[in-house]
């Protein structure tokens, strides 16, 4: 008898081990939505507002918003291996990775081309989540680039934020050198291993690491060379401080060791959290490349879109996501998240035109929406991240003194090598 019990116990253990591995959250059409996103102060906060507004009209719908880091979402999509039972109904995806995910896992993503209305969304933004002419993503936040400068440091060197508005790179370098001489402060900072600044400048003149047809465009990319030249100049002259990690980059802003930064407008929520620096910052557009074709003062960095997962409660998910075509929703999330809408009608909502106290009464959000409309689009594709890391290697070597042409040729070879599989 005892033996039988112990055998049964062992069996139960083995079985429960097995079933735990196959347990799945949620099911098809169960009237319940599970949502994955990653930032408590940003996209989770926005989704919570959407949930509240939706449940006010549909009280019986259960919505579960889970915090899952982007890296984990990506690993879980890979681990699902095309079986969506372990995935949520809706998930947030980085714009730069969107095409990579859809191309590799077409089984996972639901084609919403005919079931969602994309009018009034910025065209360049929607393009991030289009594969083979089909839409897979509902735009969320824009990564419109803003330049944020410390007005007190500029003043010390005899400049105002107007001197940094609508300028070109030559003028910017001139000012940066002058500011460095008078205050000892570098204008900018960034991660040494990252290429954010390079890609921001590249996109500002309509350039990409890829051609329209998806082939790599590096070694004969004059725009990229001009950008790397400028970047190299800034770093070698100490106008741009390279740090080793993201935390250190944020540190340069909070420790007041740089004059400012230009990057995606999501940085503003970090800047606005530095309450002791209120009133000392101003927002404007970024410097445009000098002597480069199609150069503008506008670019994009980051941003994300929502994907609907296949074989889930798709009708409910689509109905819920109508919230992202609702001006009141965008108006409600703006003050707490500073998430800039990609839905154009939102720009007339009251909170968008309201002055910001932190920025001395400047209506920064309306400004950013205006910038957003002027951003040139770029090409990403499945190999975008391969290209980023190859470019980062080239950039580091160029700053170390290596020849630019051969480094870019190397980078192009590296990506072509991966694409050759």
């Amino acid at each position, binding site marked *: 008898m005892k033996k039988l019990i112990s*055998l049964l116990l*062992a069996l139960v*253990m*083995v079985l429960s*081990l097995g079933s735990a591995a196959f347990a799945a959250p949620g099911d098809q059409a169960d009237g319940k939505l599970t949502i994955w996103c990653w930032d408590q102060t940003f996209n989770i906060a926005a989704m919570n507002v959407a949930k509240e507004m939706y449940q006010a009209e549909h009280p019986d719908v259960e919505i579960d918003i889970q915090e899952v880091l982007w*890296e984990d979402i*990506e*690993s879980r999509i*890979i681990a699902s*291996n*095309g079986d969506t039972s372990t995935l949520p109904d809706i998930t947030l995806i980085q714009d730069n990775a969107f095409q*990579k995910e859809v*191309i*590799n*896992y077409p*089984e996972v993503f639901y084609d919403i081309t005919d079931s969602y209305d994309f009018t009034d969304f910025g065209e360049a933004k929607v393009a991030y989540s289009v594969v083979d002419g089909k839409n897979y993503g509902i735009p969320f936040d824009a990564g419109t680039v803003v330049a944020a400068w410390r007005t007190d440091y500029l003043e010390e060197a005899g400049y105002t934020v107007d001197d940094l508005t609508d300028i070109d790179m030559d003028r910017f370098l001139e000012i940066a050198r002058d500011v460095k001489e008078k205050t000892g402060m570098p204008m900018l900072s960034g991660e*040494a*291993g990252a290429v954010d600044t390079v890609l921001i400048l590249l996109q500002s003149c309509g350039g990409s690491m890829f051609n329209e047809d998806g082939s790599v465009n590096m070694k004969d990319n004059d725009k990229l060379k001009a950008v790397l030249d400028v970047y190299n100049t800034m770093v070698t002259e100490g106008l741009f401080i*390279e*740090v*080793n*990690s993201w935390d*250190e980059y944020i540190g340069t802003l909070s420790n007041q060791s740089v004059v400012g930064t230009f990057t995606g407008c999501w940085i503003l929520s970090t800047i606005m959290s530095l309450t002791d620096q209120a009133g000392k910052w101003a927002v404007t557009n970024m410097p445009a490349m000098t002597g480069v074709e199609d150069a503008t003062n506008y670019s994009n960095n980051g941003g994300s879109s929502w994907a609907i997962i296949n074989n889930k409660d798709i009708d409910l998910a689509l109905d819920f996501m109508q919230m992202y075509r609702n001006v009141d929703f965008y108006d409600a999330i703006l003050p707490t998240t500073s998430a800039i809408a990609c839905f154009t009608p939102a720009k007339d909502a009251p909170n968008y035109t309201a002055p910001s106290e932190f920025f001395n009464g400047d209506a920064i959000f309306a400004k950013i929406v205006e910038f957003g409309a002027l951003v040139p689009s770029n090409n990403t594709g*499945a*190999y975008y*991240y*391969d290209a980023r*890391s190859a470019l*980062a*290697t*080239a950039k*580091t*070597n160029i700053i*170390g003194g290596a020849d630019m042409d051969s480094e870019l040729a*190397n980078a192009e*070879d*590296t990506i072509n*090598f*991966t694409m*050759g*599989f």
Partner: protein
Amino acid sequence: MTQTSGKRLTMHQKQNLWGWAFLIPATVLIFWLSFYPMIRALMISFQGGRPTALTWSDPLTRNYKFLVKDRVFIQSLKNTFTYLIIQVPIMLVLAMIFATLLNDHQLKFKGLFRTCIFLPCATALVAYSLIFRTMFSYDGMVNAVLVKIGILNEPINWLNNPNTAKAVIIIALIWRWTGYNMIFYLSSMQSIDYSVYEAARIDGAGAATQLFKITIPLLKPIILVTAIMSTNGTLQLFDESVNLTKGGPANATITMSHYIYNTMFQNNPNFGYAAAMSFVILILVAVLSAIQMKVGDKRE
């Protein structure tokens, strides 16, 4: 077999059967969770294409042939071997020195010192990597101390220079793993009878002679074990590369496992190629262990 009685044989068989019954759950789990994935991985290493639609490569060894031409992979191979060649000998010698010191019968507070040296092993890999990154950052503690005591004139950006970044990883590895290996040496030293050393002293053997003629020869099997384990561990190095330096600057510190991870999870996912790379590591570990066994195992 001396049992001849029929009854005893059934008893024996019965016991045998129960033995197998107890072995089955563990065996099934090991086959399911360990051997099956290994065989699958071997098959995938001959496949290519989109992750959910893998097809056999043409020719079958296509992934392996690509490896030879992959610049980043070769760089990661070089980096990993740099770590191996510099870090493992330093670490094992240090572990031996600490073990000898702590094995001294006259030493007081032995327990305290042992705990101190072993404690790094109890820290999580990610946590200690992040602490090393903070210590070696541009405005970190190491620079502050070195500048203050006058060794450096100005701070070094440790993690942004290929050589110093490698050095930081090696220092971190030595800090983390020396105590672990020391414990192995210490425990086998304690199993050497103290009278052997007393006899040696009477014969006029000094401390160095005792170490090289008694301790090390008697410790040979355990030295072999630690050498194989360290080699194996270093070839699979991952956390330090990811968390301390992110493989940078310009892939100067990326390890093979880190590159495999990037191939799977960061870049466009390429299962076949990643699996092929992991089998190269397996082969390297096997070959290096075989060499070490051959060299180290000379007992007759």
